[in-house]
């Protein structure tokens, strides 16, 4: 994950089982600030990372901060759809 600019980070390409814990830690560190997740590089998105992202959305909403996902890759969209989710589920408000 790289900080592209304040409030914008890029999700790594492999969001598999091994990525869940680091992703959670990374996001937790950014808690309280408006945040945009760049999902354009995501090639794989697994169940546990989906949990982390959903949890983040709920956390941001509870904190009254804003979380958004931008430029989701085809792989991201496919995984989300397979999971019965839409990109909006990962955001605090529709984007």
């Amino acid at each position: 994950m790289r900080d592209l600019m304040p409030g914008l980070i890029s999700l790594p390409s492999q969001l598999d089982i091994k990525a869940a814990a680091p992703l959670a830690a990374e996001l937790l560190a950014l808690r309280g600030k408006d945040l945009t997740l760049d999902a354009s590089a995501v090639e794989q998105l697994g169940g546990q990372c989906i949990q982390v992202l959903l949890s983040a959305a709920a956390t941001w909403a509870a904190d009254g901060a804003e979380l958004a996902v931008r430029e989701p890759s085809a792989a991201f969209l496919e995984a989300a759809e397979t999971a019965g989710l839409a990109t909006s589920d990962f955001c605090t408000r529709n984007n």
Partner: protein
Amino acid sequence: MDTMAAIKQTFFQECEEQLAELESGLLTIEREEGDAETINAVFRAVHSIKGGAGAFGLDELVRFAHTFETTLDGMRSGKVETAPQIVRLMLRAADTLADLVRVSRDGGTVDAARVSQIGDELAQAGGAQPAPAAPVFEPIAMSGDQQTDDFGFAPVMISFDDLVGGTQADGGQNGFAISFKPKPELYAKANDAIRLLRELRRMGEAKIRCDFSEIPLLSELDPEGAYLSWHVRLSTSGGDAAVREVFEFVEFDCDLSIEAQGLGGTDASLAVEALLVEAGIKESAPAPAEIPALAPVPRQTSATPPQLAAVAPPTASQGAPAQGAQQPSATIRVDLDRVDRLIDLVGELVINQSMLAQRVMEAGIARLSDVAVGLDDLEHLTREIQDSVMAIRAQPVRPIFQRMSRVVREVADMTGKSVRLITDGENCEVDKTVIERLADPLTHMIRNAVDHGLEKPDDRVKAGKPEQGVVRMTAAHRSGRVVIEVADDGAGINRARVRDIAVRKELIDADAQLSDAEIDDLIFAPGFSTASTISDVSGRGVGMDVVRRSIQALGGRITISSRPGQGTTFTLSLPLTLAVLDGMVVTVAGQTLVVPLTAIVETLQPKAADIHSLGEKARVVAIRGSFIPLIDIGSELGYRDSEADPLQSVAVLVETENQSQSALLVDGIIGQQQVVIKSLETNYGQVFGVAAATILGDGRVAVILDIDAVVAGTGRDHANRKRNAA
């Protein structure tokens, strides 16, 4: 790797159980005593084997089990009749499955042609095209009623083209409501819920809804936990089995419910659900209280839970399996070594206890003193412990009897005879070792009974018997031994022919006078075979003499009785255990010996008038008109040089396994005692005339006589002596 090997071993053990279950279920169906649950049980057995085999990559096994399962599924749904020829096919398929399991475990090869032939027959019986060699399964026709089928097999490989290409036109679409909640273990084992959902999507049209209401805030989230659950409505041309197969390797790592969405309302699916819960295959549905939390609930689930609650009470927590739904089988698997170690220790305990008792006696403590009474109680307890420990090793003879039904089928097939095997007393328990070593002799006896014992169908009809022959195998406990009988209702032993053959093979003299029983007994003579041609079935170089020897090696005996035109009965009498023995403790030249009680006919004090010399050294004793050779144990085993005086001795009349009697001369009888057998071969080496050893109460080692060897040894000795003298 060791863990893997251990798991695999457990799998094969379970396979054995499933195979036994399968066979007994099929036999029940064959007897037309089966019901839907029997067919379910049979199906489950094959299904479990397939599942396990898949996990170990045993492709051939999986493939065959799959085909088998398909046909069984047809039987479950009533599409395949339980006609006799179908059940016979199933039984042969069960045999083949057993072969494949055995080969997977022990290596070796199976008859591939036979496997594929039976596979084809199964597929045909199931109404499908024969399965091609490649591990792809032809779809079988799915009817509408298939939808309520919880186990229904459907092909795994469904191409999307098929789906679009018209299966819908003939009503081949099945609807499923799937609830799926992964546990953390699922992810920990490198499975991913998304991948499984993706599989479902590939099967057809899937409406997937994710329930993420349980997700906590990020600070409370365990990244490696499992919070999501999914509800999927799937429309597919595949059956329940295909859906289930998606979850095959994660079924224990998730809460899963797969419901066929029946056309005819919820009753059918409810019944199936209840059945599954009852069978313990599936966990009960989520508690109704949770349902409202799930937003747009699929039509089916919303209707089901309240009714379901009446049928199968949901478990308190959703995560816990519905253990109450299945009667847990109260057994544990224990390493045999541990049991044997326990038996050894209890043996030591028995010895120690009797040593202690003897010390107390020697110390001159009164019989009614507290110490002596306490010791008596201890003795009772010790005996009880010993019996209980022995019972751990005891197992019912059922598995071996079941194996015999296969032997009967095969031999009947090969010889073109129609045979019914009737078994009785399968629950009779015998020591595990005895059971294991019974397999070969019994197999041979059953082969003989069908091949030689039973007449050809035409001959039977001519003799006024039903065309179908009967082989009856029974087991029963009789006075501390287990007695197994193998009886056929064939023509009985052709004594004239047996006699001719024995004469021709120079087993007896042409003018020998033999009783019927003696002629029957010739069958056990080494090198005797009555079949005029060596048939594929019995003529495998193993004669009844080998059978007799293996039974004798188990401390058992085998006898034969035959009635012309009515059949032949072989009777096996076996010890219940190989660990203890009832013996008569005797003294010879200052040594203590144990004579196995089973060999002893009677004991007597010889009178001078009854003793006759025969030749140089041999002596016989006249008992009730017959002359019985006298064997002086002391000189025979080398305890003393001089011959014992028969008048000062006790004669123990023993019978050997070939029914000849001898009188053993011993100095005195101490008493009867149950002794713990200690192998001499293991601890020392083989000694002539000695079967094993034991430790007596006074701590001394006593040898247990090998009666047959001693008796046979004297005969040889005398022959040698005669030859030397000549």
